[in-house]
């Protein structure tokens, strides 16, 4: 086995965090079937290395914004899973008071700028968050996530151009799981190497094997340092895969079993587990302890959500305007 520059602690952190994301999402899927979670529900299963590899490269004041596949991104910034689960339940204790739901996870104290439902809508927002950091003279970096489908939106091109023109400290991160609902990347453009989309704007960019958390970490480290040094934006194309359908209601008939199995055989969590055991960074017993801990966190997130109240009807007219006595039309 090749030598690695990462510490035992880093591997243990990655393992625990990715397992937590996986177990959390598996439970969310079950709860959706039980109709505890409603609406649309997009799971991150298979893509965990992208989030975990970011955790080891950013600091507390950095910002995150993403699309609607957003249950685990708040974890990157330290949001406790139970508050995300409660949001999925639509409970008042959720990160967005039960008002956002699956697609709209926000946590201002953690600098989580939301899950956004309109494909590509978050791309200019991410540039804007970075604009504010530059304006204020900080060296905070903004991570702006998007899917492979989102890169076909015009908003991306306008935002990329201005982000480069004004050297905004934003890492644009494409989570390329090869499908936008049922449409494969090849069916959306002649340009299928998505990192090359930065070229027209001279934006530095790189493709990343995002089934490897080490590779994600390495790429993120370079991109984040570039931004932090005031050199402007950076584009990363994370080549990943979602094991499940687009949302809970997608049977995913547009791809073969073999294709799914091929990616599962490179499972990022399994790979870290193998490293942990082969390098004797952890014993089977220690792994069991982590597994139990993760299961407990997920169980507790469900209990917390079950026991939490829905927002009261009186919440209807709250949080719509900053102005507290805004005169709504009420009949």
């Amino acid at each position: 086995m090749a030598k690695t520059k990462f510490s035992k602690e880093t591997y243990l952190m990655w393992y625990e965090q990715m397992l937590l994301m996986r177990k959390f999402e598996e439970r969310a899927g079950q709860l959706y079937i039980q109709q505890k979670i409603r609406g649309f529900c997009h799971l991150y299963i298979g893509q965990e290395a992208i989030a975990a590899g970011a955790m080891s490269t950013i600091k507390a004041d950095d910002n995150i914004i993403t699309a609607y596949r957003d249950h685990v991104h708040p974890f990157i910034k330290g949001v406790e899973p139970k508050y995300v689960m409660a949001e999925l339940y639509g409970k008042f204790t959720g990160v967005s008071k039960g008002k956002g739901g699956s697609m709209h996870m926000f946590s201002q104290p953690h600098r989580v700028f939301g899950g956004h439902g309109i494909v590509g809508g978050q791309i200019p927002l991410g540039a804007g968050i970075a604009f504010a950091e530059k304006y204020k003279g900080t060296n905070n970096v903004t991570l702006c996530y998007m899917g492979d489908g989102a890169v076909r939106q015009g908003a991306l091109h306008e935002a990329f151009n201005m982000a480069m023109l004004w050297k905004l400290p934003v890492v644009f991160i494409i989570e390329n799981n090869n499908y936008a609902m049922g449409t494969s990347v090849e069916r959306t453009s002649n340009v299928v190497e998505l990192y090359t989309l930065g070229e027209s704007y001279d934006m530095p960019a790189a493709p990343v094997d995002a089934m490897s958390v080490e590779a994600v970490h390495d790429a993120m480290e370079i991109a984040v340092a570039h931004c932090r040094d005031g050199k402007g934006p950076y584009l990363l194309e994370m080549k990943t895969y979602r094991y499940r359908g687009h949302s809970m209601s997608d049977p995913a008939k547009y791809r073969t079993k073999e294709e799914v199995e091929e990616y599962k055989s490179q499972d990022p969590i399994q790979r870290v587990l193998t490293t942990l055991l082969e390098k004797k960074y952890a014993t089977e017993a220690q792994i069991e302890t982590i597994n139990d801990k993760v299961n407990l966190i997920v169980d507790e997130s469900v209990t917390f959500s079950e026991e939490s109240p829905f927002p009261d009807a009186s919440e209807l007219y709250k949080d719509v305007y900053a102005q507290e006595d805004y005169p709504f039309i009420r009949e």
Partner: protein
Amino acid sequence: MRTIQFREALREALSEEMRRDPNVFLMGEEVAEYNGAYKVSHGMLDEFGDKRVIDTPIAELGFAGIGVGAAMNGLRPVIEFMTFNFSLVAIDQVINSAAKMLSMSGGQYKIPMVFRGPTASAGQLGAQHSQAFENWYANTPGLKVIVPSNPYDAKGLLKAAIRDDDPVIFMESEQMYGDKGEVPDGEYLLPIGVADVKRKGTHVTIVSFGKIMKACFAAADELAKEGIEAEIVDLRTVRPIDYATVIESVKKTNRLVVVEEAWPLASISTEITYMVQKNAFDYLDAPIRRITTADVPLAYAPTLVEEFMPNAAKIIKVVKEVMYK
């Protein structure tokens, strides 16, 4: 008569028109290989091929504009928005191009096209996926706006929309696609801009359109048990609006309640109310009332969805108020 689903009625309309006119084509996200996000276009790729049933990237502004350009140059595009929430990304091409073209070209460039897809809420989908823009589009001269409430109307009106030489906004609902209704075997068209009295009654007129008509029917059934006979007028088209049918009904019942799944300010109900008070003031025995959604973005939690939406109970309460019961 046979009964078919709303989505099947739409599919029949699309397919019949595509068989009839080779210049009609369908374009949008997931319409072809995936057979439609909501299965409206199921099987159409097989029949018409990928020249005429066309999958797009997620690029609404681009493909809406490509549709308008194609219409300027002799084709009759049907552009599907996966939902009308996403039409906001494309609205510049709808309002600034499609709706203006004939006028600013001095009558030279017609835009015979349809923009269609589901509108309004569909359960707990959160603020960005639950919006009703019927009144936004209806506000724009140059567009026609159709919002059918059952499979029969949907088929006849979609066929009319495709044959119409003006740009038509055609709004459906995720919560209607599975609804079944009677649809005759043969071909038929329904006129754009003509309302339909869906239920006869003498005590009160309820005006509505689209999916929320279901709540009106439920309310009318309950009211009938208490001896209140509501007449239900389905606008079917919100631009142009068939004011005459509404006013005629109000002259008979002397009471009007408008039900609309939309925010209240500058809504279709506002418009109906103005025209009725102007043209039938002396016939009214009670103030015109309306039931809209709450004046807020729709939140995810079920408790807030319940508060937000018009429903049968709310309609019954307001009808009784205008009846002074």
